[in-house]
């Protein structure tokens, strides 16, 4: 890593310039996330059973050679359901971060760049939004929209943009007065070009690192909301839903709620390591 980078060249190649060879934590994170992505897309080929087929001959059977992780109250194979649910939970984590990321970045960029009244209104709105407990506001919005995955995505966008807007805004404020932006302005570039080509790429690094740890939060929120019955609806296999279905049987069949939870923990761990590794690699502290 070099301390003094020529001002103009920082506009481009903002990632490649700072990245050395990946350190172990980052590598572990990449491998774990890659593992889940492969599982998600290969699910139909690697799952041993149909995730939704009822087998009343094998109801509530404990883990065995035929059903590695056991079966649930309808005789559905837990392992196959976990594998098929991967793409649902991965989508929750990724889409639930991308949507607020885009909205928040847009708002933060505008507010930071133009300042003035827009910025003031935004800052007041941020103060108010942050006063609400995150999960409570999320559920209150879902309550209005009605339970379901789409409501969850809308709610998480309306709640989650705040962090990104704040991050991007603070970066834009610094970058706005930097030499290379001055230079771009001296060259007569328009606001749009300066914002999108010069400021935005540099303002994104902190948000990208933060978004990785945000995936963990959103994944847990999505699973929690689905567990409570407000997100993904049964019979769709989703880890939170599977845990909720297993709750009735905790005295007799511990394996129904136990294994989907392990899956959540392992997916979250992958993204946590990715976040820690990226922060270390890019030397940012979000």
């Amino acid at each position: 890593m070099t301390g003094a980078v020529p001002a103009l060249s920082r506009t481009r190649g903002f990632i490649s310039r700072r990245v050395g060879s990946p350190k172990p934590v980052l590598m572990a994170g990449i491998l774990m996330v890659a593992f889940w992505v492969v599982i998600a897309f290969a699910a139909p080929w690697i799952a041993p059973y149909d995730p939704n087929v009822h087998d009343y001959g094998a109801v509530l059977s404990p883990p065995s050679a035929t059903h590695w992780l056991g079966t649930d109250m309808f005789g559905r194979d837990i392992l196959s359901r976990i594998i098929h649910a991967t793409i649902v939970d991965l989508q929750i984590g990724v889409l639930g971060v991308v949507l607020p990321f885009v909205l928040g970045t847009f708002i933060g960029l505008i507010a930071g760049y133009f300042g003035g009244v827009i910025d003031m209104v935004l800052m007041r709105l941020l103060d108010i939004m942050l006063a609400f407990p995150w999960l409570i506001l999320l559920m209150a919005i879902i309550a209005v929209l009605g339970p379901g995955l789409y409501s969850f995505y809308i709610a998480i966008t309306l709640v989650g943009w705040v962090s990104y807007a704040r991050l991007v805004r603070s970066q834009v404020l610094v970058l706005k007065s930097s030499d290379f932006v001055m230079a771009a302005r001296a060259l007569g570039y328009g606001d749009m070009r300066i914002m999108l080509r010069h400021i935005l790429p540099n303002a994104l690094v902190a948000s990208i690192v933060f978004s990785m740890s945000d995936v963990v939060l959103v994944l847990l929120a999505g699973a929690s909301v689905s567990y409570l019955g407000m997100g993904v609806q049964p019979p769709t296999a989703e880890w939170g839903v599977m845990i909720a279905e297993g709750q009735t049987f905790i005295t007799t069949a511990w394996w129904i709620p136990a294994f989907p939870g392990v899956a959540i923990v392992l997916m979250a761990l992958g993204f946590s390591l990715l976040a820690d590794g990226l922060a270390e690699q890019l030397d940012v502290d979000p």
Partner: protein
Amino acid sequence: MGRYGFVLHRPLQLIPVLIGISLISFFLLHAVPGDPIRTLLGERTSPEVVASLRARYGLDQPLLVQYFYYVRNLLGGDLGESIVYKVPISDLLARRTQATGFLLVYSTVLSILVTLPLAVVAALYRGRLPDQIIRGFSTFGLGFPTFWLGLMLIIVFSVGFGWFPVGGYGNSFIEHLHHLFLPSLTIALALSAILIRTMRASLLQTLGADFVMAARAKGLSPRWIFNRHVLRNSLIPAINLLGVNIGWMIGGTVVVETVFSIPGLGQLMVKSIFSRDYQVVQSLTLVFACATVFVSFVVDVITVALDPRISQ
């Protein structure tokens, strides 16, 4: 104004935030699709009856006027009436506040008991095996879903060993302590994953500070230095962090109260969402937000009381 001057004028700064909170809760209620009166009376009620009821509840007034009435009622402690329970919401909440408050305080205490020793060990053994294990635990712990952790604790300690009840709140203080132990431990374990990281970093920062070096140069014993100088100074960021995470904890109680069937505010929130008791959902959102603001304020006061250097 002196050190505690902000205790008086800070609440004034909070007024815009409180107004914002009331505005958002108000619009949440009004964003609900459908006519609340029709939902209340059913589809077959005559239009005249609906109109008269709309007038009685002020629903025929402009939105701004409705908001004005809403705030006036709030200031008088009137949150409206629950459609499902047919009682004033303030009574409904009052009965359930105790369990949630107990849960929040209990889990705060437990999370300190979990965090403090682990963070101290991690900081003292920086970079060595104990530190790596504890940091690994905290990275792992970040991904633990509270509802699943709660269920696993039930499976092991309630169903397996039979040490704790599967759920409920109990009737006496001792019973509360017994019933709420696993729920509080659930929140405490999930929270400590976040707290340990920050507490460890703050301990390390203090360990490297000049005044610790000075104390060492004076020949004070390491134990004395750690207890009297390092720990005390690291306490402030830790308390601050608890304040920052109060919103997270309140969200956690909603989930945990459902897992352990605790008759608190969080369980009421989930029940009301499913019974479409929107007025209750909205009141709870408002109460939770105000509680968060209030706790953050109290944490600020405690911070100033602990550290004379900070005064706003």
